[in-house]
């Protein structure tokens, strides 16, 4: 079953900005899906259309087989949304906010109260249930929006940058929570600028840029497409020129840091062999950037350069 099918979705805002230029996307039931893209790519716009907060200019949206144009109410009741920006009444209490939201979905009060207790406890907000929403910290506000989105137990949960500005500890516990509800059967679509998060959580990914999908694959395949990785070696002794490493591209970024690009099929052992032969001691080593981040930069970079030419179909990975 498809949880979500977008066909040729377009959106031109009144000010003339073409935020979506024809998006085709299918997300399977049960998936944990990452929708990635730089600022202004069109992620929030796409989510806005799916949650009927934004009028589309063209195309179709289907949620669990329900077309949004023909079965709007049924489609809506399948979706839970955690928006990018705070959108609850800051003067209402935490408990009121979640119970009322359940009410808007037609859930009677007694059941709504039970669920409020369950989700507020799971998201560590139960102690603050009688606080005015304005008095919550930024991270608590994000969790409140997650609890609110779950009150009607949607089959598809869409989170637009849920972990923006959330500390590491809370972020990890949010990850764990999302993983759990995904395992229990909720389909999840997530946007984030923390690529580590997407790499950690998501099984499938689409990358959107300039209103087009430029990549759509499983996370594993996407990562495999990355041909090279850059490693940084911290050298114990200072030097100015990089050592000779035949077959590798190497440079010194400062007198202790040696950066080496390693292509697929090349072995780190070779680098160590050469370094040992020259008597160079390595005190530590790390990946220059997170792998998905690297791929992302290349794709977005490549598509920006190719944009005038490639007006149409989504392209495959732009390998360097």
């Amino acid at each position, binding site marked *: 079953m498809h949880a979500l099918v977008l066909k040729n979705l377009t959106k031109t805002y009144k000010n003339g900005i073409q935020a979506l230029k024809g998006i085709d996307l299918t997300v399977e039931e049960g998936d944990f899906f990452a929708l990635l893209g730089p600022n202004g790519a069109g992620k929030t716009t796409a989510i806005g259309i799916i*949650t*009927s*907060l934004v*009028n589309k200019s063209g195309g179709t949206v289907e949620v669990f087989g329900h077309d949004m144009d023909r079965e709007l109410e*049924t489609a*809506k009741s399948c979706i839970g949304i955690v928006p990018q920006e705070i959108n609850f009444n800051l003067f209402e209490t935490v408990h009121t906010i979640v119970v009322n939201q359940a*009410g808007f*979905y*037609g859930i009677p009060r007694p059941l709504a109260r039970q669920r409020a207790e369950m989700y507020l406890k799971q998201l560590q907000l139960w102690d603050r249930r009688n606080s005015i929403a304005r008095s919550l910290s930024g991270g608590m506000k994000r969790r409140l929006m997650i609890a609110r989105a779950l009150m009607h137990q949607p089959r598809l949960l869409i989170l637009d940058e849920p972990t923006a500005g959330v500390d590491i500890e809370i972020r990890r516990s949010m990850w764990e929570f999302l993983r759990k509800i995904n395992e229990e059967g909720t389909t999840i679509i997530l946007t984030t600028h923390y690529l580590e998060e997407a790499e950690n959580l998501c099984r499938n990914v689409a990358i959107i840029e300039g209103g087009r999908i430029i990549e759509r694959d499983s996370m594993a395949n996407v990562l495999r497409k990355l041909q090279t990785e850059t490693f940084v070696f911290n050298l114990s002794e200072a030097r100015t020129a990089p050592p000779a490493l035949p077959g590798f591209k190497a440079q010194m970024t400062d007198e202790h840091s040696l950066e080496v690009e390693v292509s697929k099929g090349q072995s780190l052992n070779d680098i160590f062999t050469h370094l040992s032969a020259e008597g160079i001691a390595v005190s530590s080593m790390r990946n220059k950037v997170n792998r998905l981040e690297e791929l992302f930069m290349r794709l977005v970079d490549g598509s920006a350069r190719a944009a005038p030419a490639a007006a149409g179909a989504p392209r495959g990975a732009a390998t360097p």
Partner: protein
Amino acid sequence: MSASRARAEWVGFATIVIREFNRIIRIWGQTVVPPAVTATLYFVIFGSLIGRRVGSVGGYDYMQFIAPGLIMMTVITNSYGNVVSSFFGAKFGKHLEELLVSPLPNWLILCGYIAGGILRGVLVGALVTVVASIFTRLPVQHPLAIVSAVLMTSVVFSLGGFVNALFAKNFDHISWFPTFVLTPLTYLGGVFYSVSMLPHWALVASHANPILYMVSAFRFGFLGTSDVNLGLAYGIMAGAVVVMFTLALSLLNRGAGIRD
């Protein structure tokens, strides 16, 4: 429509109404007290101080004459004010999105806000009625006319507030219409005088003012006399309800002012 859908929609509607009611109570210092204070001042100044010199209007003393008008004015401004500020506040604070993403149909969202407007209009109107009865004895000739005129008027102006809020982009926009249109029309709608006291041209012009019909029908409920033809008054009120509801709903369906 299935029974479960109907039940779900009822729960959703009730949730909006409860939320509106709680809002009125939570900010009672803005919603309930000022109109009551204003009305009391009107009664003291116009009713007791000036009214004593005015004498009788249409066979009733001036205080009795203006009391229904002042109650109706309160109902109008409070119904309008409640919906315009609550709905615009929800739009401005973005929590309107809570309703927009939910499966509640638009007509029900609209009805929820109307119910909120009626709640406040009737609540404050009742309060002013209590104040009025301190100053004068109010006869009740036709209770059904009183109730029906209040409800229809309240619905019309709740809808007016709703449409205003849809178009408003900032807080100035929600005070513009009440200040420059609603208040003048109310003052000129026979709240403080009988239009039969006016020169001919003003009398004719007054009949283009829908508020005149509402105030007159309401006053008829208390005093049993009316400045206008009652059948026409009810026709105009019913027509206004239908026109305003259709307008508000079609704007809402289009997403005017709330969906990009």
